[in-house]
């Protein structure tokens, strides 16, 4: 869009301002219309109104239980992957040998479909939180390692030379020069990872769980309650969006200087 474009009338300004919301509302209305005019049965494509009423068929306390279960696993897996990925990237950045040894292994782990490995992890670690957290961690840590390493390697060489000429110890070089330079990269990695963390939690719940939104969706489909499954799906996308936004807020709050400058 041309940034200098400014609509004249008040109405046109408002439409312009709320364009994303209006587009979304229009989409939902169209969906509802297709379902009611085409008489599409609920088990094929539930109408937005059926999904909306399905929200209230389930008690609020149950929704909260499922939401919390998924969120808990996603956040624990995410935290674990941060705890592994950042030190690992520092190690790989510092040691060329470690980089050569670990990188192929990481790629192998990343390219193995976690959905296929999940049942094996459950057999090994049991049906409780540890296996679900590990599954989530496996899905989320690769983007983090890649973005952190890239960020640290992109530090301007003159900065490194300067710190070396001042005989700065290596830990200061890492903490005071490389990591700050990597912050924008780390945060873009974190944004990708957090949405993957929700996917990881759901994959784990599909394989073994007694609660959580993934379990709830599978459960609803097994009873052919498709509107209810869609309602669960909407909750999932809401938490994904909220998590994604939270990462941005954290970045704005802690590292405002790392954000691209507004024109």
């Amino acid at each position: 869009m041309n940034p200098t474009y400014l609509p004249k009338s008040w109405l046109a300004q408002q439409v312009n301002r709320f364009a994303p919301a209006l587009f979304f509302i229009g989409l939902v209305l169209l969906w509802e219309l297709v379902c009611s005019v085409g008489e599409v049965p609920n088990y094929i494509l539930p109408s937005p109104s059926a999904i909306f009423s399905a929200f209230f068929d389930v008690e609020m306390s149950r929704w909260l239980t499922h939401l919390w279960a998924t969120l808990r696993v996603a956040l624990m897996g995410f935290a674990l992957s941060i705890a592994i990925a950042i030190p690992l990237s520092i190690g790989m950045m510092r040691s060329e040998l470690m980089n050569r040894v670990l990188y192929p292994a990481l790629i192998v782990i990343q390219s193995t479909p976690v959905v296929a490995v999940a049942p094996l992890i459950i057999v090994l670690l049991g049906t409780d939180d540890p296996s679900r957290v590990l599954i989530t961690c496996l899905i989320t840590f690769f983007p983090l390692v890649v973005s952190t390493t890239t960020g640290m390697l992109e530090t301007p060489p003159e900065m490194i030379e300067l710190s070396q000429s001042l005989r700065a110890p290596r830990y200061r070089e890492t903490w005071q020069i490389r990591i700050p330079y990597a912050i924008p990269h780390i945060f873009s990695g974190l944004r990708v990872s957090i949405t993957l963390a929700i996917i990881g939690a759901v994959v784990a719940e599909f394989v073994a769980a007694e609660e959580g939104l993934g379990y709830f969706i599978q459960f609803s489909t097994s009873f052919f309650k498709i509107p209810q499954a869609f309602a669960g799906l909407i909750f999932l996308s809401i938490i994904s969006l909220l998590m994604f936004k939270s990462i941005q807020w954290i970045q704005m709050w802690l590292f405002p200087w790392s954000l691209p400058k507004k024109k």
Partner: protein
Amino acid sequence: MKAIIKSSLRLSLLAGLISSTSAMAADKVTFQLDWLPGGDKAPVYVGVQQGFFAEEDLEVKIASGRGSTDALTKMATGQSDIGTSDVGALMAAKAQSDVPVTAVFSYFTQAPHAFFTLESSGITSIKDLKGKKVATSPFTSSNAFLPLVLKQNGLSEDDIKLVKSDPGALAPMMITGNTDAIIAWVTNTALYEAQAGGAGKTLIEMPWSESGLSLYSSSLLASERFLEERPEVAKRFIKAFAKAVEFTYANPDQAGADLHKMVPEVDANIVSAQIKSIYNLVYNEITEADGFGQFSPDRIQTTWKYVAEANGLSEEAIDPATAINTTFQPE
């Protein structure tokens, strides 16, 4: 010296506390379902809600499963102590590796596999399926028995067009005319009838048990380690479970309410309808002849014969009687 006495005193006090609490606590048992909670899985929930397990001083934790083999794996690895799964799947697993799981109590004495079709399709018997499109789900145990039931009705697999699809999509596919018939368990009858009724159609059910395929199916299985280490607990559990099964099928509405109470997502009415529709799998002429919960040696042999044929295994691979142990049943 004083300090040593003091700390050893404290230690023994602590040990005493721990042992007294464990003596007072009920025995913990982890129960494994082979699928998500539903009508056919109601007895264990009924046992908890009606206090049958508490009467036997048992504390039962229920874990849901994702299919027969998943449930077997969890019992074999000791993540669960006891649970329901297909005895045929157990025999097939035992024939291929020494799975430390044993069947202890029969539950479905008839197999739940069936064809479903709509009245409008003009199909009235299995023979009519010739040249028709039939949909099934990819991982159901029914698929293994399909060639047998077709053979018994003078058909072969080449006579039908078999497609595989997600279990949740089967009934909608049939109702929208994407397939002529589907393969599913009769535990779904109540749900399918409601869906077909919603579209103004009438459902026809053709159970395989009525067309020659008569065998044991879902049974109570237990991890062999659990049976060895805690035989008394196992006996008490089976006694309470048997009571719960009887209560469930005598009071389907109460069973629905009990399951709903523990799993609020489940609709109590659907559960009670499911229980009513599968009554014949649990109580039938076989149960009457052999006794509730029993396995007759002949029928075990027949079940194994079908399972071996269906899975392409040699009939000599195992003695099916080794998969069964009824000594833990109440006298």
